[in-house]
Structures are given as C-alpha cells and as structure tokens.
C-alpha cells in the first residue's frame, strides 16, 4: 500500500564502506571447476572446427539444416538425420560494436559481435566476431567468411575461427 507506507527498508552502501571496512564483509573465491561433456553433436562440431570445417545437422521431416548441430530436431522432436558439411561463409543477420569486455571493463579496440547465418543452413546463425573491417562499414546482409587459425594452433574450439571477414559478393 504505497501511500500508506512511510518508510521502505534497505541500507544502501557505498563501495568505500566495504573497501575501508566501515561495514564488515567476507570475501570468497569459489572453486567451481567443471569438465563438460561435449556429447555426440558438439563433439563432432568441435572436432570438425579443428579441420577448418563447419558442420551442421539436417532433419528430413522439416528439411531444416542447422548449426550449431544437435542430434535431434527441436521442432519435429525426432532424431535428425544426417551431417552436412557447410561452407565457412555466411551473411550478417545482426551485429553490434562492443567497447567493453566480459567483466564490463573498457577495451581499446572495439569488437564486432555478430550473428552470422551460415551458408547452406536454413537461416541458422552462430555467434562470432567480424574482423578486418572498420565497424562503421559492417552492414546487415553483408557476406562474410571465416578466417581460421593455422592448423597447428587449432584446438577444436569455436575460437579456431579467429573471426569472419567481409568478402565481395
């Protein structure tokens, strides 16, 4: 009862209150470590990235080809049917220009996080970065191609693709 309530609880603090110990606090660094199983679909996806190939999965019922791959079709709810080797190119579905890192600190050279629809899929995009271009020159629908790490640098990770660069149509 907003109008009937005179006072709302809560004791706001400033960062200094904590830093200078005006208010008691306890720090903690959790050891939360994992060893995630990639499984069949992502296992193959990562292994193929090491070979500089992007692979997807195709469902015969709805005809969709998707990436990242999964062993099931979420819309038809059935095991999907086959692996498809895709091109390592695509088009920009949407993009942004990031001036901050994951921990909210500022970075000097902006990154261009982008959803790239991979050629040969049914409008299926992946999250990656666009590089080798001025952020101002990135356009919706722009064609881009993967720039791979050298074979000996590749580890079977999404970062085996360094970024996607714009290409001529």
């Amino acid at each position, binding site marked *: 009862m907003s109008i009937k309530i005179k006072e709302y609880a809560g004791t706001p603090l400033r960062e200094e209150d904590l830093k200078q110990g005006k*208010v*008691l606090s306890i720090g903690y660094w959790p050891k*939360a*470590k*994992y060893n995630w*199983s990639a499984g069949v679909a992502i*296992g193959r996806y*990562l292994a193929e990235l090491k070979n500089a190939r992007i692979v997807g999965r195709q469902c015969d019922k709805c005809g969709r080809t998707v990436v990242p791959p999964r062993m099931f079709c979420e819309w038809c709810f059935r095991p999907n049917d086959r692996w498809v080797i895709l091109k390592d190119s695509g088009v920009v579905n949407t993009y942004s220009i990031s001036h901050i890192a994951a921990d909210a600190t500022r970075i000097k050279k902006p990154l261009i996080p982008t959803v790239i629809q991979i050629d040969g899929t049914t409008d299926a995009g992946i999250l990656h970065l666009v590089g080798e271009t001025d952020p101002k020159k990135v356009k919706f629908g722009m064609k881009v191609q993967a720039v791979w790490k050298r074979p000996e640098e590749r580890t079977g*990770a999404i970062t085996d693709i360094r970024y996607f660069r714009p290409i001529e149509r």
Partner: protein
Amino acid sequence: MKHVKGKMPVNFLYTAGVAGERFLREIKENAKILGVRCRKCDMVHVPPKIYCERCFERLGEWTELASEGQIETFTMCYFDADGNRLAEPEILAVIRLEGANEGIIHRVRKIRDQQVHVGMEVKAVFREKKDRVGSVLDIAYFEPFAR
C-alpha cells in the same frame, strides 16, 4: 573433442548484514557472543537475526551469552573442504552456549584426557584482539573445560 574444461569465474564479497554486523563487531571488539531474544517464542537465537524465523516477528532484544556451552553433536572430519586428507582429523561440533536455544557451529580442539562426546562442556577461545577481524574465526576454537 569429448570434453571442455571450464569454471564459474566469479568472486564474492558478502556483507555481514544488519544483525551480523553487530554480532561480529561485538566478538571483534569485546570478545563477547551476543544472542537475540524472541519473547513470543521464548527463545534466544544465535547467531542473531533481525527476525524470528518461527513467528516472523522483528527482534531487537540483544542479550549477552556465556562463552561456555555443551556439545550437542559433533563429527570428526578426515578431509578438508577440497577433499584432501588432513594430517589430524578436525572435530566440528554444534555447541549450545548457556543462555541460547541454538548452537554455534565451530571447531573443537585441545581434547586431552577424555573422548569428545555429546554433552561435553566446552568454552570459546578467542584470538588476540589485534588479530580479530570481525569473523566467526575470531573465535579460534572451542576447548574442553571443567567447572
């Protein structure tokens, strides 16, 4: 590629809270353990809270507790928090301080003549004042004592 290693890369800083602030300050400054009384439930809660979890009334009647009490239950830990074997087992106990209806969880050390047991009388051993920081570890441990 079968597995990917990773972690939850987060750190935390927890405030002691409104009740915790007063409780831990009193330990730090005066080596005294405070509880808080709920008249309605006729109980003394420790560590103190700003509310009684049973009747949900707001509490404010702070009361000083003895630093002696009885072991309500205990266990002997052979491993540390990471699962490494300890050289000597650590005894952890729930200690019901005189005047309280709840028990502090803490280490029990300096067990000599007798076996640790339920009902054993123990008292808090505080760190030196200069070493106290406002934490439950300002109580170094509990040790047996005879009346």
